[in-house]
Structure formats: C-alpha cells, structure tokens
C-alpha cells in the first residue's frame, strides 16, 4: 500500500506540469534576481516565459482527470483537472501576462528600485496559489492555497512601501483577510467534525447519506461563504476593497480585481456545487442546493448579490478618484456575477464564465489606460482629466470604450456578458433579480459617463501631450479589439464557456 501511494503521487505529477512550471519560474526568478539586479527587462521576460510555458503545458494536459494524489480509500485525491479549472487557469494566465506587461511601463513599479525582483517573484507565487485554488477538491489544500494567494497579495498591495497609503492599504488588507480566513477555517473545522473528512466529494457523500443536524451545517456553510466572499469582495465583506484598490500599485489593483476574483469564484462554485448537490435528484435545477434544503440558500445569495451591486454602484457615484471609482465598480460587477451563482445550474455557471472572460478585457483595459494617464499626470482625480479627450484622443477614446463596455451598452462585449447573465436569470424565473440587475446597470451608466463627459465635453487649459510608444499602443489595442470584437462576434466565447461548465464528477 505504501509503495502504491508513492506510485500514484509520482504519476499524478505528470498532470501537474503547469503548476510545476510556475514553481520553477518562482525559483528561477528568485535566483536570477540575486545575480542580475540591474537588468530591467530580464525578470519580466523570465516571468512571461514561465507563464507562457505553463499555458502551453496546460493546453497539452488531458481534459479530465480526477483523483490526483490519492492514496487509497480514505483519501480519494486532492486535485482534479477538468474543463472548468482549465477555463479559469487560462483566465488567470491571461490576467498575469497582462499584469507583467503593464508593470513594464508602470512608473510606480519601476521606481521601486532594488526590490523589483521580489515583485515578479511574488506575482508568480500569486499565480501558483490561484492555480491550486481553481482545481483543489480538498478543504486542507483549499485553505493552504487560499493563504498562499492571500499572503502574496498582502505584500504586493503594500509593495511600494515608501508610499504611505500603500502600507496602510496592506495593513487593512491583512487584518480583514486574516479574520476572514480564520472564520472560514472555523467553518471548515465544523464541517470536518460533521463528516470526518476533508474531501469535498466524501463530504457530499456523508452529508447525503447520514441524517445530519442542519444548524451546524448552515453555520459552517455561512462561515465558508463568508471567507470566500472576502476574496471576491461580496457585500458585507467588501470594506477592504476600495482602500486596498486605491492604495495598492495600479498593476496590482488590476490583477486583484480580475484574477483573484476569478479564483475566488472558481472556488466558490466548485466547493459549494460539489458539497451541497444532491446527485439522486432528477431535476438539475432543484438538485443544486438540495442538501441544504431547509435553508433557502439561493435567496440568501440573491439578497447578498443585490446588496453587493447596489452598494458598489451607489458608493461609486460619489467618488472623485478614478481608481477608487473603479474599485467600487468592481464590487458591483462581483454582485452581477453572484446573481449567476444563485442559479448554480449549468446555465448560471456558463453566464458567469462568459461574464468573467469579457470582464477580463474591459476591466484590465480601463485600469491600463488609467495607469498610463496617471503616470503622466501624477494624479488619479477625475477633475484633472478635464478636456483630456482632445489632448490625448487615442487614450480618451479607448477609456470611453472600456467604460461603455463596463456599463453594458451595445455594441461592446459588456452587453453580451450582461445579456447572457440576465437571460439565464429570466430563464430560471428569477425575474426580480434580473430587473434589479438592469436597474443597477442604469445607475452605473451615470458614473461611467461622468468620466467621459469630463474628458470630452469640458474645456481645459492643462498642458498634456502623450507619446504612447509602440509597446503601450499594442497592449491597449490588444485589450480594445477583444472588447469591441466580442460585442459583435461572440460565438467562440459562448462555445468555450459551454465546454467549460463541466465540473469533474458531473
């Protein structure tokens, strides 16, 4: 038996290659940083190569493989590979690659001087943690990878240490984060006590076969949802978001708002779907939350989703700092995506996946343009953007397109994303939720257009001329074209998302 388990672990490593590539990148970066501190392009180049190699290996590992690292009956594995995790890993890699590209032209990062090496090292450990989060099926590995992601992001948020607000942001982030993960851990321990195992599939098995008191289960579920809700900045746990997003270097804000949110959603969907589904039910719609049937889970999540998007949108109305406004808008977007989670059947999950894929391009694009302008202007205040549309027409128009797409107006991709999400809601008879979602989008129109109005409809006398350079132009275009293209030709994303809703075991 002993030999057998080692054999299985060694075999499993063949399917673990994308993660191994990230680990290797981590160590190579750490070593290279030691010897070639001065070189500006070496470290980003190495991390880019690492991420691309990892993506290559990801594409060439098999589609579905369960029971990785399993050792006999009591432990049926810690890790799975399925189309669902593949989708999120691709999303995370894209976000990471864009972040590295952004960092190359970011003033904040380049001024960090000798510590730039650690920045790239931590980005790779961040990516590794998110990779593990998307396909773990064991509560222990889930907690550890959750902490790996969190710890890396705490440091990255406080990275530009000499900027005071960055250190403050970091402190806020770690206090909230540590409390949230402590609460989640308590939930995990209750769940372990109820079932005697940490594997999600085995937990499902025990929960559906034994008659378990529902109150502790509800408490455990709430605590776990709360812990993950912190990561995706769900409503009662969103307090850290604006401060951290404003205080962190803008490249990190961008990656936090896309990649770490994606990993959080992947974890939320996978863990709750596996744990609380009733396999014996015939109707997919009713089986979703079946084990917790005494408690109206989807109504609770629906309420939280409404709270999240409304709070995010209403608070965004009053912001004068563009970065802070985008932070609130990202809270609101988390709320929209949570509505898809309410349904939790394939339609709902597919809508979330489509939304995320499009959100990646439009949100990263908005952050990138804001970063370019802020580096030049030295300010993120909306007032300073007055008349910018005429001084820097390309950036102005791109920012406008990204913001319009975030609102969800056709012909941009944001419209397609919202269409599928609200369509899925209506199909599942959650019409009031869809109506609230649409109303919220209308509110968001106001603050997004306020920026546009400032840039184009008001005269100003500021001196501003922007020489973008070819690199930045290309990066902007590579984000702009998908945002426009997917608004008209969205079939490939739909197909990709359709294939990716398959979670192992379903």
């Amino acid at each position, binding site marked *: 038996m002993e030999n057998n388990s080692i054999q299985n672990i060694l075999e499993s490593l063949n399917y673990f290659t994308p993660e191994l590539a990230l680990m290797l990148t981590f160590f190579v970066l750490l070593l290279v940083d030691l010897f070639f501190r001065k070189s500006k392009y070496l470290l980003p180049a190495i991390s880019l190569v690492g991420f691309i190699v990892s993506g290559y290996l990801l594409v060439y590992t098999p589609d579905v493989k369960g029971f990785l690292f399993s050792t006999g009956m009591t432990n049926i594995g810690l890790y799975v590979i399925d189309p669902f995790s593949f989708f999120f890993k691709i999303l995370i890699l894209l976000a990471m690659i864009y972040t590295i590209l952004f960092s190359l032209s970011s003033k904040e990062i380049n001024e960090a001087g000798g510590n730039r090496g650690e920045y790239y090292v931590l980005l790779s450990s961040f990516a590794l943690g998110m990779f593990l989060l998307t396909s773990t099926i064991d509560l222990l590995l889930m907690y550890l990878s959750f902490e790996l992601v969190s710890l890396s992001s705490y440091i990255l948020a406080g990275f530009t240490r000499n900027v005071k607000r960055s*250190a403050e942001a970091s402190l806020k982030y770690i206090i909230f984060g540590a409390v949230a993960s402590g609460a989640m851990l308590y939930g995990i321990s209750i769940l372990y*006590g109820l079932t005697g195992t940490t594997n999600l599939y085995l937990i499902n098995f025990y929960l559906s076969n034994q008659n378990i008191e529902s109150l502790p289960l509800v408490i455990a579920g709430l605590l776990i949802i709360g812990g993950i809700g912190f990561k995706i900045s769900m409503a009662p746990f969103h307090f850290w978001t604006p401060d951290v997003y404003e205080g962190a270097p803008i490249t990190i804000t961008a990656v936090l708002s896309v990649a770490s949110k994606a990993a959080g959603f992947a974890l939320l969907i996978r863990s709750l779907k596996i744990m609380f589904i009733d396999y014996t039910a015939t109707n997919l719609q009713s089986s979703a939350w079946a084990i917790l049937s005494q408690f109206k889970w989807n109504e609770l999540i629906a309420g939280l989703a409404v709270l999240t998007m409304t709070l995010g949108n209403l608070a965004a109305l009053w912001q004068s700092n563009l970065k802070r406004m985008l932070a609130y808008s990202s809270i609101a977007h988390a709320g929209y995506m949570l509505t898809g989670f309410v349904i939790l059947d394939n339609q709902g999950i597919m809508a979330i996946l489509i939304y995320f894929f499009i959100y990646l391009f439009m949100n990263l694009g908005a952050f990138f343009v804001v970063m370019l302008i802020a580096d030049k202007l030295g300010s993120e205040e909306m007032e300073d953007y007055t008349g910018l549309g005429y001084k820097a027409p390309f950036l102005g128009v791109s920012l406008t397109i990204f913001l319009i797409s975030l609102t969800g107006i056709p012909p941009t991709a944001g419209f397609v994303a919202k269409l599928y999400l609200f369509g899925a809601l209506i199909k599942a008879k959650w019409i009031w939720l869809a109506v609230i979602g649409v109303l919220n989008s209308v509110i968001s129109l106001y603050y997004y257009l306020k920026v546009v109005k400032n840039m184009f409809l008001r005269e100003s006398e500021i001196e501003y001329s922007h020489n973008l350079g070819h690199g930045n132009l290309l990066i902007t275009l590579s984000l702009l074209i998908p945002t426009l293209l997917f608004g008209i030709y969205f079939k490939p994303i739909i197909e990709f998302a359709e294939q990716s809703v398959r979670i192992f075991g379903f």
Partner: protein
Amino acid sequence: MIPLKYYLILSAAFFSIGIIGVLTRRNAIIIFMCIELMLNAVNLTLVSFSSFFGDSSGQIFVFFVMAVAAAEAAVGLAIIIALFRNKLTINVDEVNIFKW
C-alpha cells in the same frame, strides 16, 4: 472521561473572545494576537474532533494551520514595521480602517 461537547463549547468561547478582541482593540499588534487566538480556537476544535474520531487528518490540519499562522504573523508584523516607519503609529483608527 470528558465528553466532546465541552471541548467544543470551550473552543467556541475562545473563538468568540478572539472576535471580540479584533472588533474592540485598536492596536494592530493586539489585533494580530486576537487573530492568533481565533486560529488556536480552531485548532482545539480540530484536535478534539480528530481524537474523538481516532483519525489523524485533523491533527495534520492543525500542523498546517500552525505553519500558515507563522507565515501570516511574519507578514503582518513586517507590514506593521513598515507602517510604523512611515507613520509612527500602529493605531488602526489613525489608519482609518473603517473609512467608507
């Protein structure tokens, strides 16, 4: 022999005390200590379940929680030092932690 429920109540009490501490105290170092209190309450729950099941995986979990707690404390204290150099305070009220 002591029934399981006494251990669970005790650890729930420790956990709650930790949460009260996090909510009431303003000194960042003490907040971190209260977080350690919460994590230890969880550890007590895990160890007691593990012993009552006669299964080691709960104790393995505690082992990992300890490692993570060490890393988290190191990061947290490093952030506190960085902040203190900038601001000469570690009172979270002056950091405006609950600012909207």
